[in-house]
């Protein structure tokens, strides 16, 4: 997705066919403008939006970009971010899950009851809650595939039903505190990556980026295809290295990089790989783009839908458990309120289309960063949630409008 096509002169001879792309800088510009004109905006709008939000927030309150606050921001965005990653899968196949908030609440409640009230091993409790979410996703998918009920109706029913289940599981107390010294709570609150390890990971990441890029480019060059030039590869890796080192250094002036945040990053990276580099990922995009075409290409469409439902409910459960762990309590309001819509909004703001087939795993990270920045910044300004809801609403509206406009320009570009 971030591939830059720079054709070395040597390779041009090998591919002198009619379907050749123009070479050099001109080619890069042509590719980018062509993609933009075709309505494929990628992550450009959300990155621009993020810069604007951060600038405004910093001007309004200089604490916003402090190490302390950013460290906090990276931690508090994780639970809803994980949920939103699941929503991305649903949106990619052109469906939606409105019950992710309730599901996260149910998972938190089940974990807390099993762990605290029933005395289970905490990981066993987590496993049980996640398994329950898998089952729920599978049942959703059966109703969707067999009866053809629209996903938003199924999950709207789920939203209400599982809110009830959450209240029932929590019982008359309505809240269960998790012990502060449990691994679950320390993971979500206190566990930070030691600085030396953080720097090592950053260097490894940059090296891996260069290594895979280099291997890929030389394989393409060997096959006589256009490839990212060595210079661009090195520059890209150095830029990533510098950016990450700076981020780690800045966060380490305070508490550092939380393991929970690293966990979220790993989830996003795995999801990104699955969506872009596997047969399954292509099938997900194909189903979201044109179900009939996917079916005729021999893709088992029902299986793809089922997998999306299950991935979404499972990640919603994990997000709910992380939220409870961060709060050190599962209560009636876990996963309620704006969690549901924030998770969906994050996916859309990050650039995942509501119409299916467009977007990616990074959308959840970028989108939740936008939403959490707004929420965090407004909290710092001592503005209550009324403002937060309104501002988030406006941003969501902008994102959806942008999605629709981009879709229209795609349609007209297709007709051209």
């Amino acid at each position, binding site marked *: 997705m971030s591939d830059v096509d720079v054709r070395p002169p040597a390779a041009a001879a090998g*591919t002198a*066919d*009619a*379907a050749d*792309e123009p070479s050099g800088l001109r080619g890069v510009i042509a*590719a980018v403008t*062509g993609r933009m004109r*075709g*309505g*494929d905006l990628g992550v450009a709008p959300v990155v621009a939006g993020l810069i604007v939000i951060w600038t405004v927030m910093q001007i309004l309150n200089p604490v916003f970009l402090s190490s302390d606050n950013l460290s906090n921001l990276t931690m508090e965005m994780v639970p809803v971010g994980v949920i939103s990653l699941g929503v991305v899968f649903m949106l990619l196949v052109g469906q939606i899950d409105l019950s992710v908030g309730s599901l996260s609440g149910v998972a938190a409640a089940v974990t807390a009851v099993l762990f605290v009230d029933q005395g289970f091993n905490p990981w066993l409790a987590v496993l049980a809650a996640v398994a329950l979410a898998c089952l729920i996703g599978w049942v959703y998918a059966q109703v969707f595939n067999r009866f053809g009920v629209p996903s938003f109706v199924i999950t709207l029913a789920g939203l209400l039903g599982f809110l009830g289940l959450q209240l029932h599981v929590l019982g008359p107390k309505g809240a269960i505190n998790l012990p502060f010294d449990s691994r679950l709570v320390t993971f979500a609150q206190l566990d930070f990556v030691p600085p030396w390890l953080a720097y090592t990971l950053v260097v490894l990441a940059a090296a891996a980026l260069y290594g895979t890029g280099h291997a*890929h480019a030389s*394989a*393409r060059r060997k*096959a*006589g*295809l256009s490839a990212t030039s060595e210079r661009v590869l090195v520059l890209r890796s150095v830029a990533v290295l510098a950016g990450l080192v700076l981020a780690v250094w800045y966060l380490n002036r305070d508490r550092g990089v939380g393991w929970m945040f690293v966990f979220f990053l790993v989830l996003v990276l795995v999801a990104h790989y699955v969506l872009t*580099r*596997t*047969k*399954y990922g*292509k*099938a997900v*995009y*194909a189903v*979201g*783009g*044109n179900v*009939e*075409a*996917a079916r*005729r*290409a*021999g*893709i088992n469409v029902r299986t793809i839908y089922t997998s999306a439902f299950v991935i979404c409910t499972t990640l919603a459960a994990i997000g709910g458990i992380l939220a409870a762990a961060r709060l050190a309590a599962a209560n009636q309001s876990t996963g309620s309120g704006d969690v549901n819509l924030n998770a969906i909004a994050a996916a859309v703001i990050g650039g995942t289309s509501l119409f299916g*087939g*467009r977007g990616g795993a990074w959308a959840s990270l970028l989108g939740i960063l936008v939403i959490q920045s707004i929420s965090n910044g407004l909290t710092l300004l001592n503005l209550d949630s009324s403002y937060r809801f309104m501002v988030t609403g406006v941003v969501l509206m902008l994102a959806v409008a942008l999605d629709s406009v981009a879709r229209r320009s*795609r*349609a007209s*570009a*297709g007709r*051209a």
Partner: protein
Amino acid sequence: MSSSPPTPARSAAADAGKAGGTPAPLLSLRGISKSFGAVAALTDVDLDVSAGEVVALVGDNGAGKSTLVKTLSGVHPPDSGTITFESREVSVTSPAAAQQLGIATVFQDLALCENLNVIENLFLGRELRGLRLDDVAMEVRSRELLQQLSAKIPSVRVPIAGLSGGQRQTVAIARSLLGDPKIIILDEPTAALGVAQTAEVLNLIERLRERGHGVIMISHNMADVKAVADTVAVLRLGRNNGVFDAATTSAEELVAAITGATDNEVTRRARRSAGTAATAATTTDKESADKEGDADE
């Protein structure tokens, strides 16, 4: 893509299309019948296609063209009759079976994913190396394939949404070639295309013939049929209504076969305008204007 069989001479191919040609046809249908409830969609239909031959399948709406194509592509297996493919009697019971045999169908709606690029569409459902996609090999094969077809695609990495109708048709046809089929069935490949794009697709069909594929093309456009087809098979009301050599048969004769009469709306119209032209040459402007007024009624 394996190497194409040697190109047969066009005359040989055309001869083979007519009854009693020397080489055995690649595909031959005999006595195909298909009913949907009380409606007999196809009755006793025969059709022959040789390698390197373009057979145009023409007929009015409801003549059974689509049903015949669906029996060949495995969507609707026939009720009776035999399908002989490469001198073996076969049964085409499912779309997968048709593909296995080497019969590829490009339906009118093309079935492409607009959000995916050309390579992804070509290899959709049969990607190389599922857990770590081999995009290099897929791109190389995509380029080879499109090059063989002399396809004008701006870039193989542009999403289908950015391609014209003719280019999309090209991608759809190229995709059908990936399975290395012997027979390619095109359902109205030039419908809804502009003049230049139609020419592009017609060129492509000629290239398929040069590569030695047997092509069955459904079309309503007599000009396109005359332009690329070797043989024209006419269906009327679910039955054969003649097989014609495209080079020696006029469009009027084909229309007559399609509509089942020499006296039909199309020939009447042709006669009328011919008559008008003749009169116009010998009469005054006013009179000819009157004639045209009559013709318009």
